């Protein structure tokens, strides 16, 4: 019922998954969308429970 970092995922996946480089200077990015996202990454807001509504996925997708 809670999001947690998947730290104990199978070791194999940790080994093959390259760590992403963090772009430290958002001002260098000439795109407003990427600038916003970079700011959110820097401010660690990804797991803010209110950042986006988590109701999503409860939705009829079959048709």
């Amino acid at each position, binding site marked *: 019922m809670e999001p947690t970092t998947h730290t104990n995922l199978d070791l194999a996946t940790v080994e093959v998954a390259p760590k992403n480089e963090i772009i430290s200077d958002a001002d260098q990015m000439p795109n407003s969308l990427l600038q916003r996202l970079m700011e959110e990454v820097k401010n660690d807001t990804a797991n803010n429970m209110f950042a986006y509504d988590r109701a999503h996925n*409860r939705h009829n997708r079959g*048709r």
Partner: protein
Amino acid sequence: MGDDNWKNLSKFMSEETIQGLCASLEELVANQKKCFSVVLHGGEPFLLGIKKLSYLLQKLREVLPEHYPISIQTNGILISNEILDICSTYRASVAVSIDGPEHVHNKYRVNHKNAGTFNEVLNGFDILLHHPDSEFLNAGLLAVIDPLSSASEVYHFFKQMATPSVDFLYKDGNHSKLPLNKKSFDSTEYGEWMVSLLQTYLSDPEPMKIRVLDDMLKVLLGGIVSKEGLGITDFAIVIIDTDGTIMKNDTLKSTFNGADKFEKSLNVKDILLSDFLKSEEFKTYKEMQRPTNKKCLACSELHICGGGMILNLWSNEEEFNNPSVYCSDQLFLIKNLRNIVAKFTNKEYV
């Protein structure tokens, strides 16, 4: 897609079930360190009506502090100011399901008389947009992708609706029952649609928020992801049916009849959720989120796609030990995301 559990269920939770559920949630709040969220979904939650909705939200909010989100996923048709006032009182946000402009939405979303619901949904969303507490209540829109539609047209339609965010979902499907308008495991209809959406999104100088793309881009930028079925994030989702039965994620219903049932039928009227969350059966269910297929475990993009939604892994032969039926779509999208991030940041990502 093959589920018949709904036939045995009552339409609404009884007071006794609500009491059992709330007792469990209260205990979880007291003893679980991390916050969790509660989502009312359906069917259609607003079919509860004013009185039952008010009672349910009141009881939930009595045990859930305000920083524990309560949210409601609705088709939007029954939204009224009276209903929104109740949601506002108990701090429950509202997300509306709409698939795009009229001809896209009405293609699949019809009422019992087979008439498209677009105008009713739009009317409901308009009430939500103009409610005095709209800033809190309006949690955005949710759309299911039709790969035959124009991603650009869908994007611009949502943007003019002044929504705070949109999320897009792939249609249900698996290896034994391919998603609608996907020709084969190797085809990339959904991935191509998403890339078209991405290009429109990036070219907008004042873009709205698209959660699924934001989440994937954030991972590429070094962040973490907040969406089920994406990234290396461990979610634990349990569903409480209207009779109080504890169930697995209801999206699993699309794989085979009864796929969302635990071996033992347990009910929140009889046990505490926290006791169930410590059980071996729950642990096994939670581990289903971790991909087991060799292709996934060796894939350099696993930390972005996470192996996909469990329901999309299913095949009648290998059960859940497959890559997602959307694997080709996701790899195509991720490749394009990487190229775009590299282009804008002048960094070598690929």
